[in-house]
């Protein structure tokens, strides 16, 4: 029994089938494997990307928050300043008003005093004239003795 040729042909068949597998079966297996690899790689990439986006968004939100807080603080400060200003302003206005009212009253008083003094002087002048005319027994012409009368009145007024 000689099996040399049988052996050779068996070897050829083996390589033939190996070729068949290589051409028709292997590509499908490899494609499935590579598709799986790609799916996993893509998924991991997407996860990493969204992770990065999340951290970026967090940082941005922090920035915005800090900004808003700063601006709020500034606004509060400005408002405080403004209110102080208003208070100060009101104080100033009130003081001025008071001053004005006081000086007005003082002027009034001065004016009244002057008027009273004036009236008094005239009254005294008249009285002095009447007294003098009675003393002399005759009319004194107020025009001719005006100088004298005025002087008298002024003295009375001073006195």
């Amino acid at each position, binding site marked *: 029994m000689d099996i040399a*040729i*049988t052996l050779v*042909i*068996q*070897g050829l068949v*083996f390589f033939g089938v190996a070729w068949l597998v290589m051409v028709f079966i292997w590509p499908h297996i*490899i494609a499935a494997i*590579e598709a799986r690899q790609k799916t996993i790689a893509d998924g991991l990439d997407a996860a990493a990307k969204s992770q990065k986006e999340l951290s970026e968004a967090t940082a941005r939100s922090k920035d915005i928050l800090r900004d808003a807080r700063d601006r709020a603080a500034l606004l509060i400060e400005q408002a405080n300043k403004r209110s102080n200003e208003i208070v100060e302003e009101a104080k100033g206005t009130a003081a001025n008003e008071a001053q004005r009212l006081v000086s007005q009253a003082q002027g009034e008083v001065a004016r009244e005093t002057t008027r009273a003094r004036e009236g008094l002087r005239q009254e005294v002048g008249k009285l002095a004239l009447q007294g003098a005319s009675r003393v002399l027994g005759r009319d004194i012409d107020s025009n001719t003795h005006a100088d004298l009368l005025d002087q008298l009145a002024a003295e009375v007024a001073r006195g």
Partner: protein
Amino acid sequence: MRFAMRVEETGGGMTGYIKHHLTHLTVNIGHDKLLAVHLDSVIFKAVIALLFVVSFFFIARRATSGVPSKTQAAVELLVGFVDGMVKDTFHGKSDFIAPLALTTFCLVFLENFMDMLPVDFLPESAKIFGVEHLRVVATADINTTVGMALGVFLLLWYVGIKHKGVVSFFKEWFTAPFHAHGLWLILLAPINLLLRLIEELVRPLSLSLRLFGNMYAGELIFLLIACFTLDAALNHVSTYVMGGAQFIAGFIWTAFHILIITLQAFIFMTLTIVYASMAAERH
């Protein structure tokens, strides 16, 4: 020729060639015929199992949760496929059904795959080292398949007892498939037991015989194809005709056999899962 002379002892020609190929490398560990061990089946099964375990161990050890290597992706696809099968079929609670299914599939497939190698290569190589008989396809040995089926069935009993408890597991032998009450319960008990015994006997038998039959027949056809140019001489025209015929027949059968070995491994795994789910179910 030494080889030719040796064949004369067993009968020579095609019959001798096939007989020679169908003889196991046997070691007798006792005087009884039952104590003969098919050393080739044992060694090939052990080596293949070792290869499977070691390669999967290293792939699993190097497994990354990131982008997998091609090997890892292939194993993941396989594991995912088996896991999907188990999830679809087995509804009990058990951690080892999926690994068991994966192991049966891979081992049966790899052992079947030895059939793809040219039928004379390994036996002829072994002959150089003085090993007279060698059968490389462990699943074409009925001892291997029956052994696997029995191993699976011990595990399935374990699954059944674990899911139902010892009492109801054995009570079921007498109360299913025919449920009854009172007197009928007692009358139907032997029938139920008989049916159950047949069932328990038939399942491992069908599991092992199906695999063995397919692989044995496949191997036999490879041997018959090899016979096309047995004892052929290069100076004869018929050698070339028969050689071409052998190549074509061998090519077709080998290509077709790819399907058979995968299918048989798949069937073995699927039936294991199905039987496991039946063992876990309450009646």
